[in-house]
């Protein structure tokens, strides 16, 4: 697959995600409204919210993501290596230099966000800058720049914001439902109650599935096209080994932003490894390193 067909595919994917999101969201509100006896005003409310958040996620997703991850703008004097590596590799990739941000976190990780190359952001944690040498950092940044070049950033940041919205609303509804259920005499249809609960459970699951569809395979692709920029697979391989062996996860990462990072920001816990790989947004680091070492 060439870069250009990948770009086209990512743009189509974004539109599909928008449509699916609006449908799910409106449907969700319709069910809730049905439970309260007035389906259409609720559906209209859901439609409005979903339209506003799709438009918002297109134009403001990058700043929202930067806000939730608590990133700050990098100053050239303070982060000379990060700055020059991003500038140099953008020249090699033929991209405008993206905005450069850092996250004060000891866990090594990085992500890229924005809607296109002209409105792109690259962000690295201070932990990453501490443990990687320059060639390893070049590997990571080249990986992020390929996400920018391929328009992966558009799909994944839009998803981050939309999944975040779903989680937020589901949470709000759940709360208001539990609070209002006590005391007042409700003569509601038990079927709509079941639907309500089902909606509350199903919606986050659908959201997770969207997120899974977005990630994984594109990590391998970005690894490969990143290596085309640096011409040095070992740099990224070493960086991934260092990042994945670090014991602590990124503090400000949430389930809605996890798929943005170059390596899974949550660290393994005792939970079953099959479940983990099934619901993981990232391919296993060992596999990625193995592929890189064979290049």
């Amino acid at each position, binding site marked *: 697959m060439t870069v250009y067909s990948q770009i086209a595919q990512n743009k189509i994917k974004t539109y599909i995600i928008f449509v699916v999101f609006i449908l799910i969201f409106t449907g969700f509100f319709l069910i809730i409204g049905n439970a309260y006896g007035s389906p259409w005003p609720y559906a209209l409310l859901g439609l409005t919210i979903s339209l506003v958040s799709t438009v918002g996620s297109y134009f403001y997703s990058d700043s929202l993501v930067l806000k939730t991850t608590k990133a700050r703008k990098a100053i050239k004097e303070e982060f*000379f290596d990060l700055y*020059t590596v991003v*500038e*140099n*590799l953008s*020249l*090699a*990739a*033929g991209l405008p230099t993206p905005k450069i941000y850092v996250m004060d976190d000891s866990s090594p990780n990085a992500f890229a966000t924005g809607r296109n190359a002209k409105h792109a952001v690259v962000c690295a944690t201070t932990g990453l800058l501490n443990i990687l040498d320059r060639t390893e950092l070049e590997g990571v940044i080249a990986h992020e720049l390929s996400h920018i070049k391929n328009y992966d950033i558009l799909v994944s940041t839009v998803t981050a914001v939309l999944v975040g919205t779903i989680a937020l609303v589901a949470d709000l509804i759940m709360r208001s439902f539990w609070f209002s259920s006590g005391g007042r005499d409700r003569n509601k249809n038990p079927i709509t109650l079941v639907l309500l609960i089902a909606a509350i459970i199903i919606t986050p699951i659908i959201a997770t599935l969207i997120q899974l569809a977005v990630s994984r395979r594109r990590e391998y692709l970005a690894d490969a096209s990143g290596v085309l920029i640096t011409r040095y697979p070992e740099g990224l391989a070493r960086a991934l080994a260092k990042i994945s062996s670090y014991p602590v996860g990124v503090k400000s990462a949430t389930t809605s932003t996890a798929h943005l990072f170059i390596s899974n920001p949550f660290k393994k816990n005792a939970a079953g490894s099959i479940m983990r790989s099934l619901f993981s947004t990232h391919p296993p680091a060992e596999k990625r390193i193995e592929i890189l070492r064979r290049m």
Partner: protein
Amino acid sequence: MDITSFFTFMNIGLIIVGIVIAVGTYLVSVYNSLIVLKTRIQEALSGIDVQLKRRADLIPNIVETVKGYATHEKDVFENVTKARSALMNAGTVGQKAEADNMLTGALKSLFAVAENYPELKANTNFLDLQRQLEDTEDKVAYSRQFYNSNVLDFNSKIQMFPTVIIAKTFGFTTFEFFKAEKEDQKKVEVKF
């Protein structure tokens, strides 16, 4: 002319018109894609120029700073200044590449000279300029990589059949690569 032969005549006419349209569309699309590639190369070249200019702008400062400490190294300063003006007057890609490599060599001897002056090496202004020069050298290398990969795309495309016919008709010619100094191909002498 009876009615059936009239329709056969019409069909042949339609087929010819179809072929002409198809060939025309193909020609236009190939021509346009060549233009896009050519523009990309020119853009990449101006990317190199920006870095080369930045590099040339830093030279007088570093020469002045080193002069303040190392007064007796006239040859070195002259070489750097000569290479710089060669770079600024270079017109073609080949000349630019050559002048840039010359400048890299001259700067190397300048920094080698600086090694002999501990006070100079402690000067923060000098260290900052050195770092900036190294950074622009990297940037020249990376923009060169982008330029050369675009030139490779274009050159191989216009030499392949059937594009070669269109390229020849409209006067597309190959671009020159921006050649780096082939340092790693030189024999390394080990001295003890």
